[in-house]
């Protein structure tokens, strides 16, 4: 087994360090929010994971187009890795949101556009993995996966617009005003710092996990090839 590249080792260390720093900023450094109190602190990680997960899904849609044009299985691996990491990050986003929503909105869940879109997006990509699981031929798996990821990537924003037909109470903290929003707040400079630290931290963690996942995929392929060699 080839050793981990040095750069990846450094990135692993950096990811752990950044997680610690972001936790410190979110839990200690940032001031306690006046109305909501301590629970508002989940916001930093909520934003951090949401941001990276959504970018990851977007990235995966671009990769599926590249795969469909080039038909090189390398792009398929990049795509699966992006969706896998994003799926976990997005699940964390939703769970953190729920933890915040219970005290802020007095309910774990509400059928708000953002929440509903998030749930549907999560379901699209779970369906994506179920689809892949049902196909043995790697080329066909890659083709179907790419087409489905593309459909999912296009339908998610449309879903968001469609649910705008119904009302929203989700606060838009960054550059947005929604008079009906509940639980919104304006950020002090040190809150902003904590948010940006969390954003950077989760971006680093995402890249680190992504790289490790691609490496894992390559190793998997190698194992498959070795198995075939032994059988022959």
């Amino acid at each position, binding site marked *: 087994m080839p050793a981990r590249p040095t750069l990846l080792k450094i990135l692993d260390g950096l990811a752990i360090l950044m997680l610690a720093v972001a936790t410190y900023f979110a839990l200690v450094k940032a001031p306690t929010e006046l109305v909501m109190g301590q629970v508002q602190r989940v916001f930093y990680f909520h934003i951090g994971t949401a941001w990276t997960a959504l970018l990851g899904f977007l990235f995966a849609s671009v990769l599926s187009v590249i795969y469909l044009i080039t038909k090189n299985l390398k792009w398929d691996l990049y795509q699966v890795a992006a969706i896998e990491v994003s799926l976990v990050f997005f699940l964390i986003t939703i769970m953190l949101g729920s933890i915040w929503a219970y005290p802020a909105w007095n309910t774990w869940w509400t059928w708000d556009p953002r929440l509903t879109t998030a749930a549907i997006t999560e379901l699209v990509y779970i369906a994506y993995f179920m689809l892949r699981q049902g196909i043995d031929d790697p080329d066909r798996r890659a083709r*179907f996966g790419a087409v489905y990821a593309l459909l999912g990537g296009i339908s998610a924003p449309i879903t968001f617009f469609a649910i705008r037909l119904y009302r929203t109470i989700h606060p838009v903290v960054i550059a947005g005003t929604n008079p009906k929003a509940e639980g919104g707040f304006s950020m002090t400079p040190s809150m902003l710092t904590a948010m940006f630290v969390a954003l950077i931290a989760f971006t680093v963690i995402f890249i680190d996990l992504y790289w490790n996942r691609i490496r894992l995929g390559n190793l998997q392929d190698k194992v498959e090839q070795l198995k075939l060699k032994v059988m022959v």
Partner: protein
Amino acid sequence: MAKDVTKAPGESMVADHANPVSPRETAERSAGRARVRASSGNFLKAVSAVLWKDVQAEVRSRELFSAMLVFSLLIILIFNFALELDIKTRQSVTSGVLWATFAFAGTLGLNRSMAIEKDRGCIDGLLLAPVDRSAIFFGKVLSNLVFMLIVEAVVLPVYSVLYNINLFQPGLLMVILLGSIGYVAVGTLLAAMAVQTRMRDILLPILLFPVAIPVLLAAVKASSGILAGVPYEEIQFPINLLIAYDLIFVAVAFMTFENIVEE
């Protein structure tokens, strides 16, 4: 499971058709395909040939239609008990009940229409035909749309009679047409995928519903607006959304279909 659909990589669809094709023939076929692609008259002919084949098979067997229809009526019956459809509830949930019924019956039809192609090896024959693959796609979309519209055409009067509500309004019929187009376009593409996997019977709704949510949402919103008699401005947004969804997804499905059937 009638037949294992998975194949070893490299083994082509042609090979399991018990009718090996020489490279020369393949070349001739692709040349033929290029020729056919050049003329749009032949494209329409190919589309209508696929549509006609499906309609004729259905007229002879009546399997799909009767299954979809009975299934829809049963769903309406279940909703009747589940929601206690008294006069007051009826006004607010009619469009929801209708679209849930259409969506479920639609999956049934989509699954079946692709499964028969796969089981009897018809799809191999279709793919060997010297026509553009997208002609096959549009043919299948049209035949699925026809079946769905026929089922809807029967469900609407039945629902109208059972619940004493007039569903025959031009606006509603237009919304139903627009919604069905989007649903069937994506559904045909995903059904073609689902039948080629191991869990084909259960996979289609799981793949289709999350992607089709926008079309169902917009259709429900527009239908209930029309049934409540609101002015057109209020339902313009969902109707525009339906049109946009139809255009986008017909285009995407058309462009990606080749990847689904290619071997």
